[in-house]
């Protein structure tokens, strides 16, 4: 098994706040890794640093043995890291299909002139793209809503659409930021099955932030527990559950 993502000694400060404190991670291909921890532990900051939205103060991030620390967000996405957002960020006024099409634009090779003249290449590629997008929507079960406006969808569907959009990028690594947020027990169970399915189908490696422990238990091979930017425990969920520091982080110190 080879490492797809390696993070060494990552630090990020916001003013005087140490949001990430020497964070380490080695993620093997094909695994699902969970980042858990109380609110404000720095989980989303790690996502934003990996995807290039923030520049780290020090430390290296290697994706497939290539340093991505100074790359721009769109370059990192093009290399094959797809992500979703904690507060859903869809292209809200566009249709469901359009949302997926935009993410598939990387598959397109025609240039402006070929598009202006509507050459066969343009038509062929657009048709293929539409087909791919519709297939993807079928997998996530949104094919009947392809023409609906993205912000008119119910919450659960919006989450699924966001995942579909991230997958349309053909990523090797998928970062999911609280995919089960706001879902009830039944929906979370369905989500676990759904994430497992797309993971096998598209050969993905997944790094996810999640608060629902049943979702974490159902999916993650390993977890990292963070508190105030520091890694306080690592291992399987069962290992860290009994860790004293973890219990303290969640429930407070025993008096």
């Amino acid at each position: 098994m080879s490492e797809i993502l390696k993070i060494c000694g990552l630090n990020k400060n916001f003013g005087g706040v140490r949001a990430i404190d020497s964070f380490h991670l080695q993620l093997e291909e094909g695994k699902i890794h969970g980042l858990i921890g109380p609110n404000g532990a720095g989980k989303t900051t790690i996502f934003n640093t990996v995807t290039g939205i923030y520049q780290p103060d020090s430390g290296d991030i290697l994706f497939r043995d290539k340093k991505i620390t100074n790359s721009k967000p769109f370059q990192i996405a093009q290399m094959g890291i797809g992500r979703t957002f904690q507060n859903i960020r869809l292209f809200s006024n566009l249709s469901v299909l359009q949302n997926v099409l935009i993410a598939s634009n990387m598959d397109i090779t025609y240039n402006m002139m070929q598009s202006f003249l509507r050459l066969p290449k343009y038509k062929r590629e657009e048709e293929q793209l539409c087909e791919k997008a519709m297939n993807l929507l079928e997998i996530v079960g949104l094919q009947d809503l392809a023409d609906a406006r993205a912000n008119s969808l119910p919450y659960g569907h919006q989450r699924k659409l966001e995942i579909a959009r991230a997958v349309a990028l053909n990523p090797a690594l998928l970062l999911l930021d609280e995919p089960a947020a706001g879902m009830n027990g039944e929906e979370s169970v369905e989500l676990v099955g759904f994430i497992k399915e797309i993971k096998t189908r598209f050969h993905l490696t997944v790094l996810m932030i999640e608060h629902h422990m049943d979702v974490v238990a159902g999916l993650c091979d390993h977890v990292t527990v963070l508190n105030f930017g520091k890694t306080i425990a690592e291992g399987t969920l069962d290992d860290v559950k009994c860790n004293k520091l973890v219990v303290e982080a969640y429930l407070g110190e025993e008096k």
Partner: protein
Amino acid sequence: MSGYLQGIIILVGINLIAVLGVSILTGFTKLFSFGNAGFMSIGAYTCAILTTRYNVPFIVAIIAGAAFAGLVGYGLGSLTLGLQGDYFLITTLGFGECVRVLFEYITPVTGGAKGFSGIPHYTNIWIVLISVILAFIFAWTLTHSKYGRNLTAIREQEVAAQAVGVDTAKNKLMAFVVSAVYAGWAGALYANSLTFLEPKIFNLAKSSELTITTVIGGLGSLTGSFLGTCVVTLLPEIFRSLSSYRMLLYGIAVVVIIIVRPSGLYGYKEFSITRIGKWFKKLGKKAGDAKRRGDVAE
């Protein structure tokens, strides 16, 4: 066709080309520019100087005017597009005024504030119509391709656009250059239609008129921009007999349109025959339902 009508069609056509450029920039990318009259000015003076002083063929002069405006747009965009929304808008506003003042100062080249006269009258209705058709087809194919999709992605959610691999800086620059080229193109046609130029024709009011037209027509809609241009160009003509009150009525009409239809006349959708067909079907069905209900009630 009467000369007056031809004149109106030429005016609508020229404005439409400039508005299409703003539509791509503002309607599809949500970048607001109050400097596009500056690009019009650059295109107009370039074309006027080439045709008047160097006897360059009109078509070549139009292309040169549009290209030069595009080049300046590329330079300005590279410098300023890193700025966020409002700050970018302010720089375009400054740019438009700079061009105006600069052209007033360099008298040997532009004739200064006195104006530039004696431009050959080359612009006729056919050149304008061909230009409009070309400009519209290019804008349509651009917005209905991956380029247009990338622009709408930036409009809707810039962070997410980057997260799916859209080079937002490059795409914004492209939209800005296209809008500058369109403005330069419109300016070139305008110069050889008016035969007289002065820098203050292309002032802030002209820039804001272009943006207002786009907003009235509807953001994210090229056919809406067409409709908006007709309304904004024709309203003052219709009210012409009322002389000084016409601008007042024009202003009121604009306010009413924005209040009644905040997304513009045709916001975020294009005019299509099939949709009109569907709409009539729906209307027919509604009427049918109402009739049936009426029958039951009886």
